[in-house]
């Protein structure tokens, strides 16, 4: 019957109960959507960087990444790539010859990294072809075609079919200068692809390097559900002379960012929970103070303090149990809708893209997040009810009975 009283009590002041339930609904919705949005934000950035730039795993000569000296190539690199492609965990693998240099147009020069790529396998591994915003993916220009990022194209003021000159060290200490013609311009949320890399055919680059057909980097894309670390360990075991690293080691800023985002989410969670707790304390305290005489009567006729405490807490639990499923449903529906349609932030695209973010975000949420948020809100609601319930049991029946 105490449960019945608690249940009926919450409908005594419908407006007030609706406010509490509304804040629980909004709290859960905000947490779910906020978390989903942040996940989408983070995930799209990381997916762009991993899929188009870093890949899941990279292999180098251990000395190469120290200062990108092209004499540190991967011994038998091409042979190794072919073998790796046959590994069941590997979805795609591509090889690159890499040299740092300078790109010049008739107007301006810029420091860049020249990436001599295997045109077909690069497309499979990094979908570089999908990033082409102008021109074609190595089609239409036969001699020395080059693909450059949008930012470089804007800086150099070059267009499709414009001539650019690459200057770099040929490996013998001599500078070599070669003319290329822009075949495509890529646009990506990756800052490096937009403004630091230029892509040429591997064989065009080899012609200008002293050490011949040597590659400096192998990029591996793993099948989903495969732990990168296990393949890294496997490669390093088989080919001890090279160094395989996962994206976490190659781009530690991504892992750091991922960590930072989860902390931001926790802070968001705490802020929303605190706001909710204060709302509940306020409302339930009003409910208790309003019923002082009734509570005094209950204690006078023999209802013990534990039962009074329990009754007030149960009222809040009921409010949470009504609010939580609605909040969950609304949150789930919102995320599901935007998961398909995407949150359009094109109004802010310039700013977002300058930081490497996509302007359309697809929120998503793991199933356990729904459980964590719900438990968090219900626990907060119960904690919020403790003070009003404590106030209720502290009432003096004689004084309470004489309250008007």
């Amino acid at each position, binding site marked *: 019957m105490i449960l019945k*009283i608690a249940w*009926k009590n919450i409908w005594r002041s419908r407006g007030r109960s609706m406010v509490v339930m509304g804040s629980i609904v909004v709290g859960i919705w905000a947490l779910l959507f906020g978390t989903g949005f942040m996940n989408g934000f983070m995930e799209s950035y990381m997916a762009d960087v991993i899929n188009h730039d870093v890949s899941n795993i990279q292999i180098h000569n251990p000395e190469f990444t120290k200062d990108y000296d092209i004499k540190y190539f991967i011994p038998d690199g091409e042979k190794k790539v072919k073998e790796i492609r046959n590994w069941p965990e590997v979805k795609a693998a591509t090889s690159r010859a890499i040299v740092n240099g300078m790109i010049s147009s008739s107007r301006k020069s810029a420091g860049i990294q020249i990436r001599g790529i295997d045109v077909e396998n690069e497309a499979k591994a990094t979908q570089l072809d999908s990033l082409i915003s102008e021109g074609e993916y190595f089609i239409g220009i036969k001699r020395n075609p080059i693909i450059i990022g949008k930012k470089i194209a804007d800086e150099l003021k070059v267009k499709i079919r414009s001539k650019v000159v690459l200057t770099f060290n040929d490996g013998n200490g001599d500078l070599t200068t070669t003319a290329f013609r822009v075949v495509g311009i890529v646009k990506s949320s990756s800052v490096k692809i937009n403004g630091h890399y230029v892509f040429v055919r591997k064989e065009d680059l080899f012609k200008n390097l002293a050490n011949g057909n040597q590659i400096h980097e192998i990029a591996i894309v793993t099948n989903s559900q495969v732990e990168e670390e296990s393949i890294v360990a496997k490669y390093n075991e088989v080919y001890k002379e090279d160094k395989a690293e996962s994206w976490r080691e190659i781009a530690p800023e991504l892992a750091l960012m991922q960590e930072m985002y989860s902390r931001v989410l926790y802070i968001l969670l705490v802020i929303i929970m605190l706001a909710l707790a204060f709302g509940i304390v306020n409302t339930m305290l009003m409910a208790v103070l309003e019923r002082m005489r009734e509570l005094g*009567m209950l204690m006078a006729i023999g*209802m013990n303090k534990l039962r009074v405490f329990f009754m007030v807490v149960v009222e809040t639990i009921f409010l949470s149990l009504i609010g939580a499923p609605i909040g969950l449903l609304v949150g789930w529906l919102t995320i599901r809708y935007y998961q398909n349609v995407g949150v359009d932030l094109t109004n802010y695209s310039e700013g977002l893209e300058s930081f490497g973010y996509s302007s359309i975000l697809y929120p998503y949420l793991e199933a356990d997040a729904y459980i964590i948020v719900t438990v968090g809100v219900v626990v907060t609601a119960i904690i919020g009810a403790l003070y009003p319930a404590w106030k209720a049991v502290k009432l003096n029946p004689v004084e309470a009975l004489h309250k008007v």
Partner: protein
Amino acid sequence: MSIIKVENITKIYNETKIPVHALNGVSFEIEEGEFTAIVGPSGCGKTTLLNVMGGLDHPTAGRVEISNTDITEMKDKDLIDFRLNNIGFVFQAYNLIPVLTALENVEFIMLLQKVAKKERVERSMSLLKEMGIADKADQRPSELSGGQQQRVAVARALASKPNFILADEPTANLDSVSTSNLLDMMAKMNKEENETFIFSTHDQRVIDKARRVITLEDGKILSDVSV
């Protein structure tokens, strides 16, 4: 046999600031089956005396013994259980639980006593019947008149099978017809079931029905007359 012994009760409010002497050495005994009115002008200490007798308030000095148990030294927690099983309360403002029906209001106190559901319902219905409001069993307090609500409150007080019932100005909010009906009901319960009723009142109709009248003035017993 005396079921209540009030011995030299003194109650002082605001002891440290401006002391107010609500009760000054009040002593009397109540026998089982009495129908007693404690009367006196406003502020004479009637309600304070009832609160002390009912274990709702602690006296500054003196002792209250109920069925040979001294309740003045009892802890609050024990007093709650003691009240539940030994004392029935009827308040001036009825104080029913607004979200429960009349039947549930009567049943509630037995629920606190952990009485089985079947017995609770049977006893509640029987009490409502005796109070002449069995047809109102499924109605909420807001759907009942003041007199009907107070009858539900009396039924609730009797439901726990207390040693006695303390009624603080039970007719203060009732019209004359309702007052008369309520008093008849309580007098009947007193006569037929030997229930002990102690009222605080300044309602002459209650005083006329009482078989013993204790008159208080300035916290002291002015007279104690059995009719």
